[in-house]
């Protein structure tokens, strides 16, 4: 018990420090992983020696085609999976060795949602984010309620507070889910393909919100996506992944090289400079 309270305290202190500072918060060091359906068989795929770092307020995009290991890498960052070699450090603590409770206080994961079995109201949903801060058998405190309200406000969804989760649109649901993640008051915000089911307007809304929140609350955001242009527009760093290996890590300008992208995505592309100063990728339809 005492070691976990030490960890909480240490993380707490480091959280306060890191929100204000500009030191490296997230350090992914030579992380590799292998997965095989059967222990005796050869691994079905592997992740090899991936590394990148991120600071508070930064948005990192993990980019790549389907089945390149993006989601697995995200899970390794989240500490849900244990790397075969290498490690993931959050403010100096190995993410995998944190208990679920403490991990939830520092890392918030936004996944593609499963259908809700018994629908709840939006505010109940967001309050779930406070679960990691309470003991068993507790009732939500006024603080929890205030934080939940604030989270909804930050994503612009206060008006959805009393609505049932199964009666709001996809985009609205996405915002409430993000609010729940914010209610966890995390250091690290992880999102796995958050724009998949959204129309372009909703996509832009979401990413604008992420950028705003990352800046205001000093989150470190890691987004898994295969949307080339959105990643280019919003990410401060891009990790380009192909079959488990990160081919290049760096700001979009350095990663978005035509030959590199064509090699990874296996299709002719053209890369230009967009009006915002970021690279813009266009497809070249085949004949």
């Amino acid at each position, binding site marked *: 018990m005492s070691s976990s309270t030490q960890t909480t305290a240490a993380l707490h202190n480091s959280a306060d420090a890191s929100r204000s500072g500009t030191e490296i918060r997230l350090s992914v060091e030579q992380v590799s992983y292998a997965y095989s359906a059967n222990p005796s068989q050869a691994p079905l795929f592997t992740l090899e020696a991936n590394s990148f770092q991120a600071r508070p307020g930064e948005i990192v995009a993990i980019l790549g085609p389907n089945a390149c290991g993006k989601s697995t890498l995200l899970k390794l960052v989240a500490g849900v999976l244990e790397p075969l070699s290498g490690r993931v450090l959050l403010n100096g603590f190995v993410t995998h060795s944190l208990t679920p409770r403490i991990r939830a*206080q520092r890392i918030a994961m936004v996944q593609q949602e499963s259908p809700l079995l018994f629908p709840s109201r939006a505010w109940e949903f967001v309050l779930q984010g406070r679960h990691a801060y309470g003991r068993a058998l507790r009732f939500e405190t006024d603080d929890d309620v205030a934080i939940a309200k604030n989270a909804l406000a930050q994503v612009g969804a206060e008006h959805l507070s009393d609505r049932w989760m199964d009666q709001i649109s996809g985009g609205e649901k996405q915002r409430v889910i993000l609010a729940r993640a914010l209610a966890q008051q995390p250091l690290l915000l992880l999102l796995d393909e958050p724009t998949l089911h959204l129309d372009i307007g909703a996509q832009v809304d979401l990413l604008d919100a992420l950028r705003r929140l990352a800046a205001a609350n000093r989150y470190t955001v890691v987004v898994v996506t295969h949307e080339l242009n959105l990643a280019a527009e919003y990410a401060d760093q891009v990790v380009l992944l192909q079959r488990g290996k990160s081919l290049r890590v760096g700001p979009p300008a350095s990663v978005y090289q035509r030959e590199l992208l064509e090699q990874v995505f296996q299709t002719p592309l053209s890369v230009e400079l967009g009006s915002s100063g970021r690279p813009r990728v266009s497809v070249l339809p085949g004949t």
Partner: protein
Amino acid sequence: MRVLTLGRLLLRCGILAVVLFAVMIAALKFGAVRVSLYGLGLDLIHVLLRQTSALSSDYGMIVIDIRLPRILLAVVVGASLSVAGTSFQALLRNPLADPYVLGVSSGAALGAVLALIAEPHLALSPALATLFTPLGAFLGAGAAITAVYFLGRREGQIDSDMLLLVGIITASFLSAIIMFLMTTLAGRDLRGMVFWLMGDLSSSLQPGLRWVLGVGFVLATAAIYTTASDLNLLLSGEKEAMHLGVDVPRVRLVVYIAASLLTGLAVSVSGAIGYVGLLVPHVMRFIFGSDHRVLIPTAAFGGAIAVVIADTLARTVVAPSELPVGAMTALFGAPLFLYLLRRRLA
């Protein structure tokens, strides 16, 4: 935003407790033998003051010795089954789950049948003979629980979908064995088993067994209640729950064992009373919402109320004959289930 507070929880539980109390009084009053409410009240006061010699009438003994234990048994069994049903619905993320879906009741029934077959061949002391069938049932339930647990694991942890499938298959397999055994049993035992399979609250329990039942109920329900907020999150999805800080393997294990224990105890003493574990959670969810911190205690009260009412009907509708309790719960439960099902779809 009306958050759940302790006050709100206690209010809801308090109201249901009053309803349960009233239902219990009514159950004490109604039966094959007429009892006046006034005489009943006096008798209860005498019992509370331990003046058993001052009981007002012959009927006093009937009420205290026959009806009261039976009603208390109905309360504990009803509460156990409802809490178990609520837990399994959350654990398996399936609204159709009931306490028996994982094979616990089939295991208990098989244990009881085997005990019935074996008993005449063993020279048992009278005390042990009364315990033999419930003990056999409980051991059978335990065996089923263990088997399903080990078969339903994947990578060393309980996997909800696997568990459900394994449980259903185990239940059918055990039922087939039971049917085979029942065709080879002598006529008398067969009739007794039918009553047990439908749920029967008329067997008197030895004081030792009553203690086991009561203490088991309290411990198991308390264990489940400590995971109440975890269960709320589990319903959002297991991965989501894990990311929100729930120790999913631990919660699954605790809930599985505790809910199976509740079911095993209930079934061992009263047979497989149907529909209570399936429907009471849904009805309580409909009234009070799906927050398990409220749902678990209200389901317990609701189940107790339902089974006491069903049992009272079972022993008064064709008095002095008695119907099996399970027949009553099925009679009212099935239409109610259809109604709720259609409401959900509408």
